[in-house]
């Protein structure tokens, strides 16, 4: 089964004053949509993807999110 892929990432202001991670996903059917991760999960995703910066998240499988749990 194909996975969704991260095609973009940005920092957005969370409603609680934290910096949150908004990742844009491209799904296997070609559709795209945003998902917002809280600060802790966002940092864990970057770690799971060995991403030093936001640009490093591009092209990573969304399945990596499982490793943040």
């Amino acid at each position: 089964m194909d996975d969704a892929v991260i095609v973009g990432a940005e920092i957005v202001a969370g409603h609680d004053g934290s910096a949150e991670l908004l990742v844009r996903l491209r799904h296997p059917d070609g559709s795209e949509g945003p998902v917002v991760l809280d600060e802790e999960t966002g940092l864990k995703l970057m770690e799971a993807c060995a991403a030093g910066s936001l640009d490093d998240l591009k092209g990573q499988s969304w399945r990596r999110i499982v490793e943040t749990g």
Partner: protein
Amino acid sequence: MFDVIVKGGLVVDGTGAPAFTGDVAVKDGRIAAVGKVEGEARQVVDAAGRVVAPGFIDPHTHFDVQLLWDGAARPALEHGVTTIVPGNCSLSLAPLKAADRRRVVGMFQQIEEMPPEAFTTAFEWSWEDFAGYVAAIRKGLSINVAPLVGHSVIRLWVMGNASQERAATPDEIAAMQDLLRECLDAGAVGLSTSFVDVDENGRPVPSRFAQFEELDALCAVLGEYGRMLQCVPEFYATDITIARIDQLAELSLKHNIPTTFSPLFDTAAVPDNAPRAIARVEEHFARGARVWPQMQTRPIDISFSLLRPSLFFARLPRWVRILRQPLDERLAALRDPETADKMVADLGPDGGEQMMGRLVVRGGDAAPSELVGKTLSEIAAARGEVPARALINLSLEHGLDVAFLSASQGHQLTDRIGPMLAHPLVHIGASDGGAHLASFATYGDTGYLFSEFVRKGRYLSLEKAVAKVTSETADIWGLKDRGRLAEGLAADIVVFDADNIDRGAELPSFDMPGDGMRYVRAARGVDTVLVNGEVAYSSGAYTQSRSGVICA
């Protein structure tokens, strides 16, 4: 003989009708006359050159705990807010069994960031049921309270530990229905639920374990009373938000209830988020459903310190790597001159002026008081350093306990938000008053409405802006006695200077129990606030009045 006459002001009656110069007379807590009033009064409030409007209604707050020692919900009242709706986001302080208090305190501390002393020293926990909580706050109120009951605490009461483990059985759902009826009979104005919030351990709050059948059954009870369902949807995830809107619309139509979701934010990262949500709301209103999106007026700020890793640095790989390290290793790295040099170099030739120069030292922590409110650019210049170096060194000098604010990082574009706030189906609210105490000030959104969107942006007329936060809010929530300056209604009145009403600067204040810190904003341009006919705030001071009520 009237009790009070508010004399000679510009009367903005809350209906959206054109303002006119006149008087408002009060007797026995109610508005006795509006217009040219003849007769004597025990107290005259000179309102010449000022606006006289109905008291503002804040439909999304978390003052549940604070109300137990502060019946004015300071500083909400001084901003002209005369009625608040606490109990949002699935959490209220009742119904709650004594054995479950610690668990709910953890959830409140997570959301409200209230110090532990607030729950152990500031009040005597004398109630379990909703009527008991209402009785506990009623005696000291100087602001009106229209409380929601939280889905999470109803679930916890009925299911205990299982409330955060599984779906409810039919018998448990029936028990929740009975309990909700009891709360509504005791004064609750609706039910709040959440699809987002977590407890202090990062676990979803109980309401998030509910299946649709449970929410549907609870809404059936709301339908018996015609009361509100409030929910917190997933932020920025537009497709999911729209699915929630659809769900709320079905519940609204099926049970003939009003529903509201909060907050709805605008963000440059997902520019179609709010417009798509509003468009969906329009479709559902056209079908007869009531799904009110709540939108706050104030921008969202990001705050952080080097005590914890922050995504603020997500574009700086070296900073992310260093700040993710355990505290001891992080401190060692920051103190290492070679590492610090590389970190500063990462910011480029301007030393971080563009990225960090506008950061503001917030205060309320270990930062020297003389630096509070100053930008990092100013501080760096005074120190003879570039901003990135100043951020590192200032943090090191104070054990990393220096909070920085990056202002207006979301929901900040006045030219986009103004028209949305003016939209007839957008409900101005979502202040979160009384929550996120140690992160930012949740007070003064009404002042910001008038300063930013009426005076500066001119997206709403004075009359329309007043109507948005008075009569329209009262109508949405079914608060029949509030929101208008009309004979016979409750005399909740605010007198303010239309040219100056605003929110003050965000400042730390150590006025929580146990000298706990919170950020507050004082009011500007609000002269006098009457609650049920009594002056509760005047000339910059709170009075001894305790005229607030539980209102329905």
